[in-house]
């Protein structure tokens, strides 16, 4: 039954390949949608099955691709038994995340039917979407480090290709390239940590008895590593000390932070504004941005051994959350606002992970996925209808595009943490985790850190709520700005294909939250947990109150300021904004940061291109030119004249006879009879 996971992962890949079969791109789109739908159904079945057998051990099934002879010393003292293995792992985390990825991908593809209609690269778009789906599904269900790394890279490549879909636009190319290059830094960190883990642990793992049913031990498998990390912390593994664990954890932190758009590299996510909206939705909500959180969740046993790193992760997440919320307040491009909100919420997820509330952190990721996807798609609908993404020029969508704007409102409310919607419950979980501040193995963050985290989380929640309401209010209410060529009467509701996903997401966003109410049995915390047994986090009234206050209060304040345009509220807001010029400062910093990214990352990475152009290209050109000269010279043999051909034939025969004679008499070294 667990082997359904193979089908879940591979069906989108098959759909990706099959999408090149039909002649009509629209039929290719149907193939992809069907494939993703099948994958979704299977993943739901798998989820149900896993929920039933929740207390069983995680199921792993791998295929080994290469096998080296055992005990082969490859030099450097490393025993040559690295066996690349790819496979599936079904446990709580993967069983829950797979339907999420599949469903969001399906909805995004349905949205593409409407929004990408008539696009020249439609088939490519769908193929890449399904490929990214496959990669992400494989990522969340990866059984070992190697598989995870391979799929990490594949997801990154897909997101780069998706972002650069409209490659004839230089802004899109630039954004895609910047996103790709910035996340490569995370890649390097991940690879280093992988190598470090392998080098340190493989010798020890080879000595362990093989698991039943497999003929070799994979030193990178998560099941094994979970034990090995703990033993390493205890000093039971040769060559591994606390320093190793800290370094590995820091590398993983770097990788997760870069990919999930944390401070200071959060602006690459804003580049998804240049991508086709469905792709942007997928990237932000289900694939690239969430990879960091899933990575930390997978490697949680390691992080548990090094609490300071966890605390650092939480602090980073908190700072990002605040910065993201502030930036969302200052931007005017709809997609950029949403991107900053996403990074802010990812920061909050990291906060949850950092204080030991693994289930809360992942649950926050879970709920935000729906909300973010909804927001991106709704904003895309509005932008398509109005022809601009600038919220200062938008308005009046409430009347003219009722479904879209109401769905957008639902998404914003959920994301902001308005009471009883899903965001509320997940934010409550995070705040509760901060308050409780207890890792599963008993350690906890120091007091000042906890205070900082709490303040930052609450501030981020409030500001984030403000930003989200601002988005909806300014975009949906009021009247649109007058622009050349724009006729407000022409604005109509989006077609069905672009509307339906929004409604589904809004509904899900509202309902799903109830799965994570802490303290109630059979909730999220039972499925995804840190340590050996699920922790039943107690119901924290304080957390509930704080979340309600800031979430709903922030939303209400935002409504007052921007929707009602209450003069008193606006004056207050303006005075606050003037007193704490956070917004202006952060806004000013951003171009600086962009420039730094460009200098530090983009430019050095292009050095190999220079090398290629100056060394490799002239070399290959010289080879080609030499061949051409030789060929031109050889062509002169082809005179077409009988006499010259006769001459060539007879002369060649003479030489051949000479050669044969010399060889037969032994005068040619190494050929023929010896003398």
């Amino acid at each position, binding site marked *: 039954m667990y082997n359904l996971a193979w089908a879940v992962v591979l069906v989108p890949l098959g759909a990706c390949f099959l999408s090149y079969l039909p002649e009509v791109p629209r039929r290719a789109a149907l193939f992809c949608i069907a494939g993703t739908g099948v994958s979704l159904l299977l993943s739901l079945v798998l989820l149900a099955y896993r929920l039933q057998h929740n207390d069983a051990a995680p199921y792993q099934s791998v295929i080994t691709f290469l096998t080296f002879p055992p005990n082969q010393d490859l030099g450097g003292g490393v025993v040559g038994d690295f066996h690349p293995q790819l496979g599936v792992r079904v446990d709580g985390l993967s069983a829950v995340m797979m339907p999420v990825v599949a469903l969001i991908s399906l909805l995004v593809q349905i949205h593409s039917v409407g929004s990408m209609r008539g696009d020249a690269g439609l088939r490519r778009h769908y193929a890449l979407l399904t490929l990214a789906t496959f990669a992400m599904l494989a990522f969340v269900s990866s059984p070992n480090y190697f598989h995870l790394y391979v799929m990490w890279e594949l997801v990154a490549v897909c997101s780069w290709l998706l972002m650069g879909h409209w490659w004839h636009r230089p802004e899109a190319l630039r954004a895609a390239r910047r996103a790709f290059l910035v996340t490569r830094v995370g890649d390097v960190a991940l690879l280093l940590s992988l190598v470090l883990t392998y080098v340190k642990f493989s010798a020890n793992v080879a000595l362990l008895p093989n698991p039943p049913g497999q003929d070799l031990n994979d030193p990178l498998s998560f099941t094994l590593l979970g034990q090995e990390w703990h033993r390493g912390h205890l000093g039971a593994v040769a060559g591994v000390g606390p320093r190793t664990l800290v370094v590995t954890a820091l590398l993983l932190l770097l990788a997760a932070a870069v990919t999930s758009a944390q401070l200071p590299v959060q602006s690459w996510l804003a580049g998804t504004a240049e991508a086709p909206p469905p792709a942007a939705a997928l990237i932000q909500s289900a694939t690239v941005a969430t990879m960091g959180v899933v990575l930390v969740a997978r490697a949680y046993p390691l992080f548990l051994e090094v609490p300071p790193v966890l605390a650092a992760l939480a602090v980073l997440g908190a700072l990002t959350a605040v910065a993201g919320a502030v930036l969302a307040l200052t931007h005017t491009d709809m997609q950029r606002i949403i991107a900053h909100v996403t990074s802010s919420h990812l920061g909050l997820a990291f906060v949850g992970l950092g204080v030991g509330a693994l289930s809360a952190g992942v649950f926050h990721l879970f709920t935000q996925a729906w909300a973010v996807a909804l927001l991106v798609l709704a904003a895309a609908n509005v932008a398509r209808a109005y022809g601009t993404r600038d919220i200062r020029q938008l308005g009046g969508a409430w009347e003219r595009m009722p479904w879209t704007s109401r769905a957008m409102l639902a998404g914003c409310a959920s994301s902001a943490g308005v009471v009883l919607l899903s965001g509320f419950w997940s934010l409550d979980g995070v705040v509760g985790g901060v308050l409780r501040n207890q890792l599963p193995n008993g350690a906890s963050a120091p007091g000042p850190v906890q205070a900082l985290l709490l303040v930052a989380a609450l501030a981020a929640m409030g500001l984030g709520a403000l930003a989200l309401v601002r988005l909806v209010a300014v975009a949906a209410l009021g009247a649109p700005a007058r622009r050349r060529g724009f006729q407000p009467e022409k604005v109509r509701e989006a077609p069905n294909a672009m509307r339906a996903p929004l409604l589904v997401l809004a509904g899900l966003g509202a309902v799903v939250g109830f799965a994570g109410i802490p303290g109630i049995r059979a909730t999220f915390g039972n499925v995804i947990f840190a340590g050996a047994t699920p922790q039943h986090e107690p119901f924290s009234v304080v957390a509930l109150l704080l979340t309600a206050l800031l979430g709903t209060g922030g939303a209400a304040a935002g409504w007052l300021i921007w929707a009602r345009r209450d003069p008193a509220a606006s004056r207050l807001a303006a005075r606050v904004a003037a007193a704490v010029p956070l917004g202006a400062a952060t806004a000013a910093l951003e171009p600086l940061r962009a420039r730094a990214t460009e200098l530090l990352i983009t430019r050095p990475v292009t050095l190999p291109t220079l090398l290629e152009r100056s060394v490799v290209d002239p070399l290959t050109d010289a080879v080609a030119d030499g061949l051409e000269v030789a060929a031109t010279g050889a062509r002169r043999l*082809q*005179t077409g*004249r*009988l*006499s010259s051909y*006769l001459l060539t034939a007879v002369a060649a025969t003479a030489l051949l006879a000479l050669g044969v004679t010399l060889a037969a008499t032994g005068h040619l070294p190494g050929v023929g009879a010896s003398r």
Partner: protein
Amino acid sequence: MSIGVTHVLVVSALIFGAGVYGVLARRSLFGVLLALQLMLAGAEVALVGFARFGDASAQPLDGMALAFLAILAGAAEGVVAVALVLLAYRRHRTVHVDELDKLAG
């Protein structure tokens, strides 16, 4: 010095060499044809020489048999070659070796 196989071989080599020169230097196709026959004749002389001076116990005169058949085959080849020359003449109106330059693509 009594005539031995070497003498015959030298003669055959010289006839063959004359034939090679003719094939390369003659400007008329018929000249090339005749020179080709010379080359064949040289080989036949060598064959006969080996049959005469070699070990005759196992297969007597097989070299001469081969030379016999080779001369006949050479005659057949000469006839066909002349027919080909006629065809080429009709196409290109020349039997000059250098003027036949349509062999290149």
